[in-house]
């Protein structure tokens, strides 16, 4: 069932620059929620700081606008405490791959069931156009006094080598493709990255709409492209990773969008927790009663002595 997309709209004026790629992202995200008929009270959009970070208040769902670089650990706490929530992270390239790189990698290692949407615009938008970690060395965008002095990181290969089990790329102005990719990512169980190429009309005069639209192609146009791991076989996994990483290197002439890699066989962090705590999903942190109606803790004196019996000494 598809719910009415307008229910995901909020009445705040969107203060991005006219023509900014972020408009495409917010629209695709809302459409994806609508088409999946999600319940807004069960969706949490967790965002970083940057132009991109403001997205949370343009979607009528729970929103947490966190700290620069920390959206992922905030999201992790939310998801761990209440695994029934659908948790998405929207962050800038500076936010997720610069100051937040440590958390970005850690999420892959955990394979927590969270969708990360990377607003890849090559610049620090909100602080007026410095080079972001996705901008290549030697490139000089508008606001830079000198060509960029650092090499770029490749979000796709970093995600794959960190352990993300769904890794895709899409394009901000291709709302349909992006919407479908977001839907797939939400449906995937495990850590998902969507690298969204997002033109910044104000500061990035290199990676423009025109730049992309001359180069983008959909991986799916190749009938032989199969990014999904079909068996839990190590060799297949290695092969799929290898092909994805090779594809990830394409850039100058043509730039692929679509799913690069998906592996449904890696247990999520939540499932790993459940191994140690069998009732984790039924009784996650946010759901447990901790006191009786009279305010007394669920652990009374008797239970206390039982639970901590190894610390209790009976005086003989």
């Amino acid at each position, binding site marked *: 069932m598809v719910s009415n997309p307008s229910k995901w709209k909020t009445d705040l004026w969107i203060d991005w620059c006219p023509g900014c790629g972020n408009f495409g992202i917010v629209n695709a995200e809302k459409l994806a929620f609508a088409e999946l008929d999600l319940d807004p*009270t069960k969706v*949490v959009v*967790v965002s970083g700081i940057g132009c991109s970070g403001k997205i949370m*208040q343009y979607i*009528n769902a*729970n*929103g*947490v*606008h*966190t*700290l620069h670089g*920390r959206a992922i*650990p*905030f999201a*992790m*706490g*939310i998801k*761990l*405490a*209440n695994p*029934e*929530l659908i948790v998405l992270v929207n962050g800038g390239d500076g936010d997720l791959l610069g100051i937040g790189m*440590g958390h970005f*990698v*850690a999420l892959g290692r955990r394979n927590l069931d969270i969708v990360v949407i990377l607003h890849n615009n090559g610049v620090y938008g909100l602080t007026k156009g410095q080079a972001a970690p996705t901008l290549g060395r030697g490139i000089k965008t508008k606001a830079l006094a000198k060509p960029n002095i650092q090499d770029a990181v490749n979000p796709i290969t970093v995600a794959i080598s960190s352990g993300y089990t769904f890794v895709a790329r899409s394009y901000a102005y291709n709302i349909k493709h992006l919407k479908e990719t977001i839907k797939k990512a939400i449906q995937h169980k495990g850590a998902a990255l969507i690298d969204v190429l997002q033109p910044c009309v104000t500061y990035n005069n290199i990676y423009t709409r025109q730049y992309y639209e001359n180069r983008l192609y959909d991986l799916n146009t190749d009938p032989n492209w199969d990014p999904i791991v079909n068996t839990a076989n190590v060799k297949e996994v290695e092969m799929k990773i290898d092909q994805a990483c090779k594809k990830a290197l394409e850039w100058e002439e043509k730039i692929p969008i679509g799913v690069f890699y998906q592996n449904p066989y890696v247990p999520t962090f939540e499932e790993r*927790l459940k191994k*140690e*705590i*069998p*009732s*984790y999903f039924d*009784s*996650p*942190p*946010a759901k*447990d*009663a*901790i*006191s009786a109606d009279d*305010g*007394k*803790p*669920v*652990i*009374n*004196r*008797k*239970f*206390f*002595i*039982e*639970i*901590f019996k*190894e*610390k*209790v*000494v*009976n*005086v*003989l």
Partner: protein
Amino acid sequence: MRENLLLMIGGPQGSGLETSAIVLTRAFANKGYNVFSDREYYSNIKGKHSYTHMRISARECKSLSYPVDLIVAMDAETVFTHFDDIAKGGYLFYDINVVNTKLTRIPSMGAYLKKRLSERFIEMKIDETLGSLINHIKEQGVNTIGLDYLKYLKELSKKYTLSLSVASKYLSAIAIGIVTAATGLEEKYVFNGIKHRLIGREKIIKHNMDLIGNIVKEVKDIVGEPLKLKVPEVKNKEILVASGNEIIAMGKIVGGLRLQTYYPITPAADESLYLESKAILKANGKLLGNIVVVQTEDELAAIASAIGGALTGARTATSTSGPGFSLMVEGFGWAGMTETPVVVTYYQRGGPSTGLPTRGAQSDLLFAMFAGHGVFPRIVLASGDHLEAFYDAIDAFNFAEKYQTPVIHLVDKFLANSVATIPIPDFSKIRIERGNIVDGDEDYKRFDFNHIISPRAFIGSKAIMWYTGDEHGEKGNIVDDPIARMKIHEKRMKKLEIADKEIPISRRAELYGNEEADILIVGWGSVKGVVLDAISNMKDRDISYLHLRIFSPFPKDYVKKLLTKSEMVIAIEHSYEAQIAKLIELFTGYEIKHSIVKYTGRPIYEHEVVNALRKILSEKVKKVVLSYGK
């Protein structure tokens, strides 16, 4: 027979000292004694000198003192280091195999200590061998008793056909045996202690008991039971034996903790490990809840994810010490701005920077009070002993949720690593208070301006809400309208005024002694035990102790009134500067003129407090800097 015994067991880090200490503590507790013990160690895994310092008493005791009545030295370094810590008439047990060891041949000993000792040995006119030193202290009136540790281990290895290196792992049993014998403790108590520590490992238990039995027999043959203890009066049939780390974990669990995120750091990490061992809370065959404990990639993530969890309604916390909290400041401020209840259990250790990572301090009070840019309300509480720490751990959550603020629960290494006998907490007093929680609906406003403390719905409830670290409107959207800014800033700050009205003074400051005492000592945190023990030994003086437990909201008027009533006020603290005095002056304008401080990272000892007080009283000294302890 004595009421009270002070003892020390020393040896290299990693040689089983912790085992001896825990077994002995439980054994004495088992017979009804009060025990208080501290462990001192260097930031090292194996080889550096460490020791356990313990008081066993037929009456209550919450501190340590010097000189001790008994030292069991596992190695030469212990004797070199502590030879002057033993009382006249006290006992030193040592290994006869190391008497020829020279001071200069102790590679693990630090250069500063070695130099001081060399100089002293020259003064004392003894050569640098352990044997001469032992002779010297014998002459000074210490009973020095050499045992052949190796012989026992060899016997054990032979009897059970263990290799000598495996047998060496039973060194801790030698210490246990010596203490058992010297104090006349019945072996059954020790057996219970051993069984508990080595649960299920029957063979090893047997080896231990066998060795202990041999030692006990031999020691008794040599010296009898020279330190025999009076039979204790037993008040409680059931008591807890736990470290500060453990009792805080217990408090958190009773208080409803459901998600703890942490990054390992001394001396906080053991709390999280203990919590993890209680992930599934079952009692009476029923599941009462689960505790998720997650080791994060750093402290930035630890606080961020604790906050994230709190947004969904779980009681969440993180535990750390100074370096970790320094990294949590930005997240802490976010919680303040967004009115999110999150608890930081803050174990102070010797600073600044990495500092003395395994030693104690109380030097982070001002940091805890003012950490974070901008102004936001926080609750800061501190615990003086194990039982306070238990209740505080629960209240930390209650305050956090009632006032919708982050809470810092200040404790320290002294508490964390001291193991004590503790009564079972009084459950009739414990309540879970969650504040104004609602389900919410479509019109829900998380920061409804019609309340100072707006009703709180959880993410995942029936309402939708936004949170941002930016200044925000009622719905939680980013706003920088100047008038709205004023409103919500004032609303946030007024919560602290409400807390100030609601939290009773008695919860925030406790006076031990009478209001008009000649001398008022002011302290907080883990100086409590030693101050109370010290002043109970100075009945000739009219001294009271004001123990501060909550610093924000600060009990201004009460403290000011009290201070002005005493003729002399003395601040005591484990820091360079007595931060408590600064804080009191900030809030009340009252300048405390006297202080007793210590910043070596070692505990404050009872005898030091007594001496310092006498010095202040008789010699009119303003500031006494304590330095006892190795």
